[in-house]
Structure formats: C-alpha cells, structure tokens
C-alpha cells in the first residue's frame, strides 16, 4: 500500500478518544496495540480516498481535485472498507 509522508499520522490519543466516545458501553476499552492498528486503518482510508479522487480528476483531465471527483469515488470507497 502507498506510503504517503511517513511522518504524517494520526495521534494515538486522538484515535483512542475517537473510538471510546463512539462505544455504546462504558466498560468497553481498547488495547494500545489495537489503537495503533486503527490509526493505520484511518491513514490508509484517507490515502485511498485522496488517491482515488486524484485518479478520478486525472481521468476527467482536471488539474484540481474537486469535491465532485471525491463524490464519484465515495460509494466504492465505502464498500471497500
């Protein structure tokens, strides 16, 4: 899978907070290794979204990636994840 800017990543604390606030039960916790993996998943998600939108823009001969390019690739992106 692509490696976009190995330094750019989601912060572990941010991802941990994001997860815990979506849990329905107070008892549910996340292991720190799991947080690291979810961080990876999110990064891949964003990378895929961007690269697919870029490809869409290219196929339409556009130099700027516009929201309509993102909208076109969104359904398949969500199905793939």
């Amino acid at each position, binding site marked *: 899978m692509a490696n976009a800017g190995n330094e750019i990543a989601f912060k572990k604390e941010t991802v941990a907070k*994001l997860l815990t606030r979506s849990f329905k039960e107070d008892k549910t916790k*996340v292991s720190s290794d799991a947080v690291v993996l*979810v961080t*990876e*998943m*999110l*990064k891949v998600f964003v990378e895929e979204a961007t690269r697919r939108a870029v490809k869409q823009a290219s196929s339409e001969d556009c130099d*700027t*990636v516009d929201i309509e390019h993102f909208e076109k690739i969104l359904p398949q992106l969500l199905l793939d*994840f």
Partner: protein
Amino acid sequence: MDTLKEGDTLLRLKAAVHYTVGSLCQHIAADCEKQITKQTIAAIAETAFRQCDIFAKDLEAFARHAKRHTVTVDDVKLTARRTTALYNYIQKKSEELALNNQELKEKRKKNAAKRKSKDMEAEENEVED
C-alpha cells in the same frame, strides 16, 4: 454544563482529524502534481471521522461477541476483512507491532538484569570496605 464540554471536545477532535487529513491530502496531491480544494479536504475529513465511528461500533460488537470488554488487535483485523489487500497490510502491521513489543520486552529484561548486577557489585564493594 456537560453538554458544553461535550460539544467542545467534539470540535477539538474534529479539528485534530481535519488537520491530519489536510496534511495527508496535500502531501499526496503534491506527489501526484495536482491541486486539491479545501472543500474536498473537508469532505474527506468528515468522511474519515464518520468512518471511525463505524469502526468503533464494529470493534465493540466483535469484542462483545468474543465475550471481552477490551478491543484487541484481532478485532481490528476483522474490520479489515472486506478487501484482501487491506487485510494483508493490517496483518503485516500487526506482525511488526508484535515484533516491536518483543524487542522492547527483551531490552527491558536486559536493562533490569544490568541494574541488578550493578547493585550487587555495589553491595559487594561496600562489604569489602
């Protein structure tokens, strides 16, 4: 009072996500020699935020199904099951993590052993005096 705090935390989280997403998008777009609009970045950030909510709910369901209260690496791997390439990538990352943890453990063991032998030496020297 609580709802104010809750709203504030939500905004901060969204802002944090938006910041990282923005950096990633700019980096990739530049790499592909394209421009990307702020609107598009905002849309990707919002989608990522919502996707994280979906991940969380799935993870909680998997953990509960396994009669656990703590979400583990195995639960995360399950959420990546839909696309083979993604699953393989996450599998690789989890193996790297496990290896890393193993190395850290061994380092700590060595350091603890070193400290112990240093302490014992110090004791012996004291006794000699």
